[in-house]
């Protein structure tokens, strides 16, 4: 039995070995790009001294983690990461579904396409450009908001880039501006898939538009919504680095409300060269992220097997 299995396998490799040759470059790439760095997590447990090299540096156990969690930093970046991403998930879902429902009401195909294209435009732009756009709006001396909008409302100019309290609001608006075009198309695709018969019979029964949205569209949209939200929750420990680094112009004055784990790790590495603390924070992020993905995948699989990642 066992021998037969092996012979089959050898035969199979002879017959389809070319497939292994094809996949080899990708496997080597993933090994270098993804697996080698996984060994690098030992850095989080070492006192890195480049004279001694990474492997030769002294082990310090959990000291890097101890320092990280003793400071205020760990609490601030965890809080910011979770609150921002939580807010993005809630606001993003509500707004995307609302826009998708509206887009679905547009009967002319051309008009619907046009709206979709325009709302999707910000999604294509790099965060550096977004930072320029925000600067043109919020610059203290000559920004559009301070120069034209606030005087109209009779409000004094605001130093946007010096007031950390305003940034949860600003970053949420920027996030929605950039991403709603993308997510609403996903929801629109599943609304379009809903059978027209439901709406026809509801209209015959005299249901209002509002009633139809509430009793047909939203319930039938629920599976997509659940999956989208769960997938986002699985990644809640990872932030859009560009949004939090570029848009506040990497300003130290704003860090209490704009610093997330990703920006903290970046700063530790590039600005302070504190490899130990920075990789401790990175490892904390990877492990919690990993557990979150596993948990959400298990939930997704219970809801709908086909949609689970594995």
């Amino acid at each position: 039995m066992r021998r037969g299995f092996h012979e089959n396998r050898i035969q199979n490799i002879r017959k389809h070995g070319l497939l292994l040759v094809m996949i080899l470059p990708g496997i080597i790439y993933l090994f270098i790009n993804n697996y080698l760095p996984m060994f690098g997590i030992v850095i989080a447990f070492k006192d890195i001294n480049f004279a001694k090299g990474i492997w030769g540096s002294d082990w310090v156990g959990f000291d890097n983690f101890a320092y990280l969690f003793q400071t205020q930093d760990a609490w601030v970046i965890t809080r910011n990461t979770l609150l921002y991403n939580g807010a993005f998930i809630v606001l993003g879902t509500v707004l995307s579904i609302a826009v998708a429902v509206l887009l679905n009401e547009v009967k002319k195909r051309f008009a619907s396409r046009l709206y979709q294209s325009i709302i999707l435009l910000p999604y294509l732009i790099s965060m550096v450009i977004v930072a320029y756009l925000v600067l043109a709006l919020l610059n203290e001396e000559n920004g559009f908001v301070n120069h034209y909008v606030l005087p109209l409302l009779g409000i004094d100019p605001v130093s946007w880039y010096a007031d950390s309290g305003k940034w949860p609001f600003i970053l949420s608006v920027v996030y929605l501006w950039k991403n709603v075009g993308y997510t609403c198309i996903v929801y629109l695709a599943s609304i379009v898939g809903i059978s027209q018969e439901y709406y026809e019979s509801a209209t015959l029964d005299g249901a209002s538009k509002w009633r139809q949205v509430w009793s047909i569209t939203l319930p039938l949209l629920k599976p997509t919504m659940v999956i989208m939200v769960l997938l986002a929750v699985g990644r809640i420990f990872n932030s859009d680095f560009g949004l939090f680094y570029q848009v506040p112009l990497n300003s130290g004055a704003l860090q209490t409300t704009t610093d997330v784990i990703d920006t903290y790790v970046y700063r530790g590495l590039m600005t302070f060269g504190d490899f130990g603390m920075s990789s401790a924070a990175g490892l904390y992020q990877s492990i919690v992220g990993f557990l979150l993905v596993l948990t959400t995948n298990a939930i997704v699989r219970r809801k709908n097997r086909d949609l689970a990642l594995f």
Partner: protein
Amino acid sequence: MYSNRIYQMAVHLVLIMMGIAAVFPFVLLLSASLTEEQAIIRDGYRLLPAQFSFDAYVYLFNQYSLILRSYGITTFITVVGTIFGLLITTLVAYPLSRNVLPFRSFLSFFVFFTLLFNGGLVPMYLVYTDLFHLKDTIWSLIIPNLLTNGFYILLMRSFFSTSIPGEVVESAYVDGANEWVIYCKIVLPLALPSLATIGLMLMISYWNDWFNGLIFINDGSLYSIQNLLNRMLSDVQYLQQNSLSGQTAVVSSVPLGSVRMAIAVIGVLPLIAAYPFFQKFFVKGLTIGAVKG
């Protein structure tokens, strides 16, 4: 009937307002790049230039070597990255879609585990700088992004296994075609729509990439457009100090504010110009990709 008209009008009104909100900042940017420098300082950023001027673009035109080189870098990494990214993605996805692939379950796990866990930024940075010495080379702008998104492999694999009939592959095999021939002559041609979609996503992410430049590139001559913009955002004088013609006399008259905005305009222009042509593919790709990714 009457209330239906009002309803439709309300729907359009809301969507038009959203459209304006989406486009408005771009108009501000374009307008600023076409405004006379003093007018920006005096009147701030406006929707329409208070004092129309091409100075910023004339200045950029005179500094063409710096801008042109960044453009060249961006174009090079976009073209090379997209081609190799597509090649390596399909070369992983196709074997995984065949159930005769030896060690299939191990290889699948090897690929998909990368979606779940990573070593983090610091080890990744050290692998590329310390082990492979790619810092300040153009390859550091291309290689780290080739397979960044494992979801593209997932997408491609399920496309191959669902929309390329097993019988076609099987009969080609019986006719004596080997896996290479099947891959090149049958699989890739049939997969053109999804190749286009994923190619587009790769193209956009290479065109927009500034992160790899930020961590790996210190040498200004290797700046892509996005890195040049990023640098000018933190250091307004950067362009002035690095202008190759070295006309120190005119430095004071350099329209810094509008030049920054003009480079930003140049940075987004190719994407926006090409957008109407690939919009259809792009939307299709989003809807396929979204459910799984």
